[in-house]
């Protein structure tokens, strides 16, 4: 899986990056992306609270909004990284409504989605791009939260 540099920094990298940014600042040099460094740290903090392998959709929404406020959503484009409910649906009063109750493995659902699109919609480049970008993002977030149980 391709790792997005924006959110792929480990905690150690983050400390080093902050030190480099401070050193650069003291020399009168503007650090490349100090905001992304800070936001990555905030994202790592936020991700300590969430387990993407056991999470409800409402929790995914809350998490994405927190990440948005922390400036950790690339470009601030929340809807590129927060899908509407997916999974099981039922027809209720003439409307398709989500039938997902409780928690599930969000990462696996995203992986399954990408696998399906790659196999069956490979010529739909726009959809493929959108889904692949989202999957990469959440894998990176998952790696940030991987120290949660340590």
């Amino acid at each position, binding site marked *: 899986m391709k790792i997005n540099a924006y959110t792929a920094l480990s905690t150690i990298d983050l400390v080093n990056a902050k030190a480099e940014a401070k050193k650069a600042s003291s020399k009168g040099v503007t650090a490349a992306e100090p905001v992304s460094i800070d936001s990555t740290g905030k994202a790592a903090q936020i991700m300590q609270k969430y387990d993407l392998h056991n999470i409800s959709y409402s929790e995914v929404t809350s998490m994405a909004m927190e990440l948005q406020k922390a400036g950790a959503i690339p470009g601030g*484009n929340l*809807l590129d990284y927060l899908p509407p409910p997916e999974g099981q649906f039922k027809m209720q009063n003439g409307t*398709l409504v*989500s039938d997902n109750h409780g928690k599930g493995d969000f990462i696996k659902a995203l992986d399954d989605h990408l696998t399906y699109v790659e196999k*069956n919609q490979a010529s739909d480049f726009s959809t493929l791009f959108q889904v692949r970008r989202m999957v990469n993002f959440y894998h990176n977030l998952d790696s940030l939260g991987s120290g949660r149980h340590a």
Partner: protein
Amino acid sequence: MMFKKTVVFGSLLLLSGFSNADNSGRNVQEKIIVDMGAPSAKLQAKQMRELPRPTAEVHPMAPAPALTYLQVAYVGSSNIGWEGVSGFQTSTAADHGGTQLRIVTEELGYGSIPVATWNGGVVSSAKNYQTDTICVNWAGTGYDIPCLAGQTVVGFRKYWNFDGYQSGSFTYQNTSTNSPGNTMNDSMLVK
């Protein structure tokens, strides 16, 4: 005595020759079957072309089902996230805003003349930036969005991009690919 080849069938060469006269004076042909080994690849290919396929292997595809459902399903914005809207709503409940404004439509059946408008003007199909599939779930009790491997696609979820707007009026319609050629539509006022 005549010696003539009559037919080649499979790996056998059937010869009919050695015409002899029987007791009544009629000519009688002795048939000799000679094993010629496996048929050539060229011959096999020709036979495969000429012989009809076993009917048990023919699976004619059913025509794409007509549209039976079309709805605006979600409206999303940077400030609110995604708001699910029911089939009875004509406007959003939330006050949307922010840099992004997206709309999701869902349709069951196959349509081939999609038309979307925003504030009265027909929008480019490029506004439909993502399409997910809808399938009947394995239990047959509901739907999976997106489909899982091996399922049959029965509908589509389409994502529309109206970034830069804070509000507006959206309509979407589509017409069944096959009979009865019905058109379904829905609209949503985004506040």
